[in-house]
């Protein structure tokens, strides 16, 4: 019993504050990536750290605590999306928000700029339209570079489910864009 108590010991305030300082920005970006809504993201951000505090004893691979936190963040964000009525609205909103940084990109020619803007806008629009679970898969795989095995482990699902989600997410993102042979993206093997 004593051993069990020790195993479930929670971090001190100083320890948890350091974790918070290190991962605050990452967790906020993660939950915002899923929700695209600052109010939902704020709620999910807070709950992610509360869950993390209560479950720190479960972390076995200390070097992957960021990956572990990100999966809590995405799960929590998806839960908040589900709780909100009419959540489908969220999936198509916010394109005007993205416009503001299209102009920041540097282009070598007008043709590149036009094509590039269209493609980038298409990509952003498609990500916005992805189901949250697919967006989660894209985030964990391509931004945080988790392996299939890690995603399955942390999300507590089968590897085959993770692969299926990634395939579907990629197919949606590639659709239409892929018709033009120059415009293929997110290729490669799922490993």
């Amino acid at each position: 019993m004593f051993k069990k108590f020790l195993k479930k010991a929670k971090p001190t305030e100083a320890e948890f504050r350091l974790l918070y300082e290190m991962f605050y920005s990452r967790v906020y970006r993660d939950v915002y990536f899923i929700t695209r809504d600052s109010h939902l993201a704020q709620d999910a951000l807070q709950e992610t750290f509360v869950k993390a505090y209560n479950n720190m004893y479960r972390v076995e691979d200390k070097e992957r605590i960021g990956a572990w936190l990100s999966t809590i963040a995405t799960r929590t964000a998806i839960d908040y999306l589900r709780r909100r009525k009419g959540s489908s609205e969220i999936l198509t909103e916010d394109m005007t928000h993205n416009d503001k940084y299209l102009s920041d990109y540097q282009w070598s020619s007008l043709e590149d700029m036009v094509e590039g803007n269209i493609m980038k806008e298409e990509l952003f629009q498609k990500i916005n339209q992805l189901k949250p679970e697919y967006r989660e898969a894209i985030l964990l795989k391509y931004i945080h570079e988790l392996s299939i095995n890690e995603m399955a482990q942390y999300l507590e699902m089968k590897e085959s489910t993770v692969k299926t989600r990634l395939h579907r997410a990629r197919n949606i993102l590639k659709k239409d864009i892929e018709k033009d042979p120059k415009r293929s993206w997110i290729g490669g093997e799922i490993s």
Partner: protein
Amino acid sequence: MTHSSKDQTEENWLREYYDNVEEPIKTKEETWSHIVSQTGIKKQSRPSWIKQKGLIAVAILALFAVGSLFMKEDQIQAFSWFTKYFVTTEGEVTQISEIQGDPPAVKKQLLPTEADIHVRNSTKSHEVSTFAEAQEITEVDLSRPDYMPEDLQLERVTIYYDQDKTRKVQSLYQNEQERQLVIIQKPASQGLGYSKIVDNQDTEIETLTIQGEKATLLTYKDGWLQLRWKSELNQWVVEGSYSEEQIVEVAQSIR
């Protein structure tokens, strides 16, 4: 555009999408307070000496002096596995380290052995006289201070490379009497860890907050001050023989 550069561009777009977020509804501190209230983390009250600025250095040095007597190795390990910053004292020297990920094993001997010394090969550098010129040749998004003690002018900006990537950018400010102030910007992509060993007898160590981040101010016996901190994207050093207030003001003004 080649296939690989295309993939890279699209990966950059994905990253851009990820990084482009609205401001959080609450501040970082408000969020922390909420988390504390939800988890029941016990607040650890700060000792009153922290508020007494004049005693900070003395107290920290005293803490270092006795700290190693009370801190067991396993406690250091348990605490520091996600710690960015830690301080260890042995005898007359203090090691200040910032790490990412797992920390190195705690060494009984702080001073490096021959096996600990690594030689960096073929470091290139490029020297220019303005920020604009520097920005044209480095991939790092350069920041610069809004405040500088009145008599100092930018003398040169030196960009150091590791292979083709910028390792750090050093800006040297100088006045007519050749009094200098240096700002170093090191991108996170090049790793943020560092370790420094200082002599307790010749150096005062103070912990400050710069732009919301924990910072370390070292004051050497000869009046040279070195301030280090880490932002999300960069590691920073501001150093020179200026007052603490001036060094801190320069640091706080970097945008």
